[in-house]
């Protein structure tokens, strides 16, 4: 079975992001970028499926600028077999990304798509669901466990107040939650070997899908500064403040 894993290049999770002064977006100049952590979890899961003998090939797909090749290389170093880069300098919306992925999946015919539940830049949490709808495949989102048996996948989902277990027919789209696994460090020898694994470079135009934006960003602003805390003298004063100022009691 072939596993397809979409991976996104985002601002590194350690970076404190800054909003551009003209409020059009986030400042990306000289900012460290790396693979979206949820995508990393998805790659790890795919590689584990391969190591278990369930999967035979892991294909990593990224849509983004030329530097997204580095993100694909990271996936290759972790154990993916080959990569596809759909190169574009535009910041595509979830629907456009889902359409492009659907077109790639049309060509690649994977047995399962494992992907992050969301990217930490836009936090849209949309591509997986849209992709499943476009393909008319079953979807299992927020997976914390994936077991594959024959042509079905049993997926445990983290939902409010507990765990839900679904059985979905394959092929399906599964999106990874934080606790699905702990991604490995790509070993140094594998980082060097990843250089020899193939990456196909394509353009959105190759797939003939309409990627025009549907949404307009009006402005991007910093969250309001948090007010400093206050010290109270007594429990009575605390209760009074919670009642009268915070209005929570």
């Amino acid at each position, binding site marked *: 079975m072939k596993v397809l894993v979409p991976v996104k290049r985002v601002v590194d999770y350690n970076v404190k992001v800054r909003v551009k002064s003209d409020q059009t977006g986030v400042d990306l100049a000289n900012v460290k970028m790396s693979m979206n952590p949820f995508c990393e979890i998805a790659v790890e899961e795919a590689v584990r499926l391969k190591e278990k003998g369930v999967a035979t090939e892991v294909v990593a797909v990224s849509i983004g600028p030329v530097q997204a090749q580095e993100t694909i*290389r990271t996936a290759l*170093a972790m154990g993916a077999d080959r990569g596809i880069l759909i190169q574009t300098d535009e910041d595509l919306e979830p629907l456009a990304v889902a359409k492009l992925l659907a077109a790639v999946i049309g060509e690649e015919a994977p047995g399962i798509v494992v992907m992050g539940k969301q990217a930490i830049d836009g936090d849209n949490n949309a591509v997986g669901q849209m992709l499943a709808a476009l393909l008319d495949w079953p979807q299992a989102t927020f997976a914390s466990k994936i077991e594959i048996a024959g042509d079905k996948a049993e997926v445990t989902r983290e939902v409010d107040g507990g765990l839900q277990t679904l059985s979905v027919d394959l092929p399906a789209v599964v999106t990874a939650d934080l606790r699905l696994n702990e991604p490995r460090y790509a*070993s140094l*020898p594998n980082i060097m070997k990843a250089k020899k694994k193939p990456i196909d470079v394509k353009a959105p135009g190759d797939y003939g899908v309409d990627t025009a934006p549907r949404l307009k960003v009006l402005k991007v602003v910093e969250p309001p500064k948090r007010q400093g805390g206050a010290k109270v003298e007594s429990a009575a004063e605390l209760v009074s403040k919670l009642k009268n100022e915070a209005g929570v009691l």
Partner: protein
Amino acid sequence: MALDLETRNQLIETVRRFVTERLRPIEAQVAENDAVPDEIVAEMRELGLFGLTIPTEYGGLGLNMEEEVLVGIELGGASPAFRSAFGTNVGIGSQGLVMFGTDAQKEKYLAGIASGEIITSFALTEPEAGSDSAAVQTRAIRDGDVYVLNGAKRYITNANKAGLFTVMARSNPDIKGGGGVSALLVPRDLPGITIGKPEKKMGQQGAHICDVTFDNVRVPVENRLGAEGEGFKVAMQVLDRGRLHIASVCVGVAERLLRDCVAYAAERKQFGQPIANFQLVQGMIADCKTEALAAKALVMDAARQRDAGVNVTLEAAAAKYYASEMVGRVADRAVQIFGGAGYVADYGIERLYRDVRIFRIYEGTSQIQQVIIARETMKRGG
């Protein structure tokens, strides 16, 4: 062969992440228990750290000197005791074999060294031969197709874990200096080898040194590295590379101390403001930064020259001398910037202050580096 920039960056980035996420959080625990946990050593093995400098055909990474020092700088981000776990395999314990070994010798050991299955040690120092290392008294007397090894080595890093020693011993007692010394590969399991108890040290708890004694140990002649009488040359060439590695770790520790100092100075308030606002504190930060930059430039330049095939005996000695003295001054100022907290164990600064002291002593003391630098400078006429 040098790595392309993208692969190199990814490699450095992975080491940095491992150091920050896995090693730094358990520094205090390692110092307390005087041991690097087995699971961390296993992770180091998986990551490939034991094979950094072992040629790729034996499963290592075959890093060139520039790449090795870049990794060394990253390793300085956590207690130097961690580096010691695989440091001998990367440096003094393996490089004699890499540089002078026959194909058969390499075939036998290098894959195990690269994977970390075999830990290596470099045994030069003796009770009576420290800085004057050409004066080794351990004897390796030829008897048919074996050398019979007798004597004692002192302060040998990783001796308690080693599976293979590179031992410098006098094979010709009639020649007093380095010319009478041969280098031998000595597997731990040969009869007659005793390893002493780990010494109690000033710093770098978790890294161990022990005495090693040889009592009629019969070492096959085919285990000799290089020609008979070439052992001192083997040792000196190994140390040339080792010194650049040590210098790079010094730079890394200095950079880490600087990050800690800057963070602390911004946080700690006195007289109603962060101490970072005081110019006298800024002066210390500026001196640390300037010296760290100078040391880094020296290390990088020497490493690149070595990769270009230039003899860097002078430059390696200068880099080791300057970088090790530099990190001592930086650690001292770090204690000062932290004030009382710098002297209290919880903050880890006093630990690093003790840890870095050894860099001015082993692989040639600062004085020995000065002697080498002066000798080479005079040879070159300036």
